[in-house]
């Protein structure tokens, strides 16, 4: 973990209620896709945690959806504004387990960390199969950037406005692939875990106090006992989470 003072490079809307925030500054604490940072928002006491969409060089990128007071205030950030963040938090995905034909599954605003993992896998010469689920075409993020990377995602929307109509679980072959990685809302993750016939890991979210393992605020029940989403996760082996 490293405390970093960032400068906002951009903070633009890219989908319905979703903003693309790029921060300039030290990214050296990030060591794996799926890690997160914890941002101080002016006027709010607790920091707000976000999985990272990409990191490297001197820029870190976060896609966030406006869901409450913190994210609403964040939309007011302008280029040049200072942002205080704790960085390199959490374990991240274990890209080493991918095997030859990994399957990546993203749901809604759970897509950015999956995108970060795809970049890492492509860099390692592995081409993942990517499945993305959204409520509607207006919610779709990063689909074009996956294509630019040479990975064409299969997209499902609940209302059928883009790609296949239905949930992401409707378009996946549960037995195909070497290993899977998933991030998205809890109902999606539960459905994915019960569907898949190959081993995998999932990235969870929970309301956090500190984000670095001290307050025991973000508890998750697992087969290893009560663990911390922030410090023991956010990525857990699929079979160890007790839903």
């Amino acid at each position, binding site marked *: *973990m490293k*405390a970093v003072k960032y400068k906002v490079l951009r903070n633009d809307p890219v989908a319905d209620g979703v903003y693309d925030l790029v921060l300039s500054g030290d990214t050296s604490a990030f060591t794996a896709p799926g890690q997160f940072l914890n941002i*101080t928002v002016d006027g*709010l*006491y*607790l*920091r707000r945690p976000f999985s990272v969409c990409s990191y490297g060089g001197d820029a870190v990128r976060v896609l966030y959806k406006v869901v409450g*007071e*913190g994210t609403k205030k964040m939309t007011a950030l302008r280029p040049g504004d200072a942002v205080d963040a*704790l960085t390199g938090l959490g374990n991240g995905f274990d890209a080493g387990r991918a095997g030859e034909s990994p399957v990546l599954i993203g749901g809604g605003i759970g897509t950015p960390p999956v995108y970060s993992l795809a970049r890492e896998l492509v860099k390692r010469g592995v081409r993942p199969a990517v499945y993305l689920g959204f409520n509607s075409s207006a919610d779709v993020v990063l689909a074009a950037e996956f294509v630019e990377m040479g990975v064409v995602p299969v997209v499902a929307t609940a209302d059928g406005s883009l790609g296949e109509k239905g949930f992401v679980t409707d378009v996946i072959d549960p037995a195909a692939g070497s290993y899977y990685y998933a991030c998205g809302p809890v109902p999606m993750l539960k459905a994915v875990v019960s569907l898949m016939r190959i081993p995998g890991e999932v990235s969870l979210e*929970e*309301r*956090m*106090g*500190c984000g*670095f*393992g*001290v*307050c*025991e*605020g*973000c*508890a*998750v*029940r697992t087969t290893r*006992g*009560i663990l911390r989403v922030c*410090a023991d996760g956010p990525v857990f082996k699929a079979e160890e989470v007790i839903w």
Partner: protein
Amino acid sequence: MVNTGVMLCGVRLDNPIIAASGCFGYGEEFSRLYDLDVLGSFSFKGTTVAPRDGNPAPRIADAPDGMINSVGLQNPGSQAVRDELLPKMAGYFHKPVMANICGSSVGDYAALAEIFGVQEQVGWLEVNISCPNVKCGGMSFGADPAAAAAVTKACREKTDKPIIMKLTPNAGSVTDVAKACEAAGADALSLINTVQAMRIDLRRRAPVLANVKGGLSGPAVLPIALRCVWDVYESVKIPLVGMGGVSTPADVIEMMLAGATAVEVGAANLVDPFACPKIIDGLPAKMEELGINSLSDIVGAAHG
């Protein structure tokens, strides 16, 4: 050169800053960020006889100038703390540590006082009779003078180490509980634990916390804590450890002027992991600015 040292129950603290229980774990995470020996001390996570899983999530809610938690005393239990965590702690903290203990019966407290009362690393026992997030025990002892006295007495019989009873602001009369603890043999009192509070999610029309209610901490409670320390200082003769929203050197001095001999820093550690060293670094300049040569001179000075 100003003097930040204070004595707490016969144990010297290089400075009055003690990281508060529940906001510092067992120190390990912070030991990777800075040298914990800069602290006066720290009070480890409230420990019960047996391991506890705590409450269901969500356990955390934001609040104006503060936060609400309903962790519910999740901890690995006294045996793991004694046999695994204390030896580990010896590697990264070389001063007396404060052992925060919590029970759901008088017998639990006595057992914990017996276990931690003989540990060389433990400088003080901080007896938590004020946790608002557990169904039995915790605050139910701290809200009732007779029950608080019974816990104090049970611990007193088991150890000669200094006993600090940690009080709740949610009691009918915090001074009555304070006096009962003093009469039953407490060496000091620490206050305040969190203030019972809640938030409601507007969209779900339901409480944010799975446990419905939790405890408010952070700067929002500082004035409440000052009032409690002020009142208790006028009611007892034993020293006080003040806490509640302390985040700056000025807050530390304000708490000491109200009557605190030492000061615990809690929620501030969670939003800024370097809060304690920053406060400690800033204390001498603040003292000089206010014409304070020795911090121990100002304890209770606001009472005239």
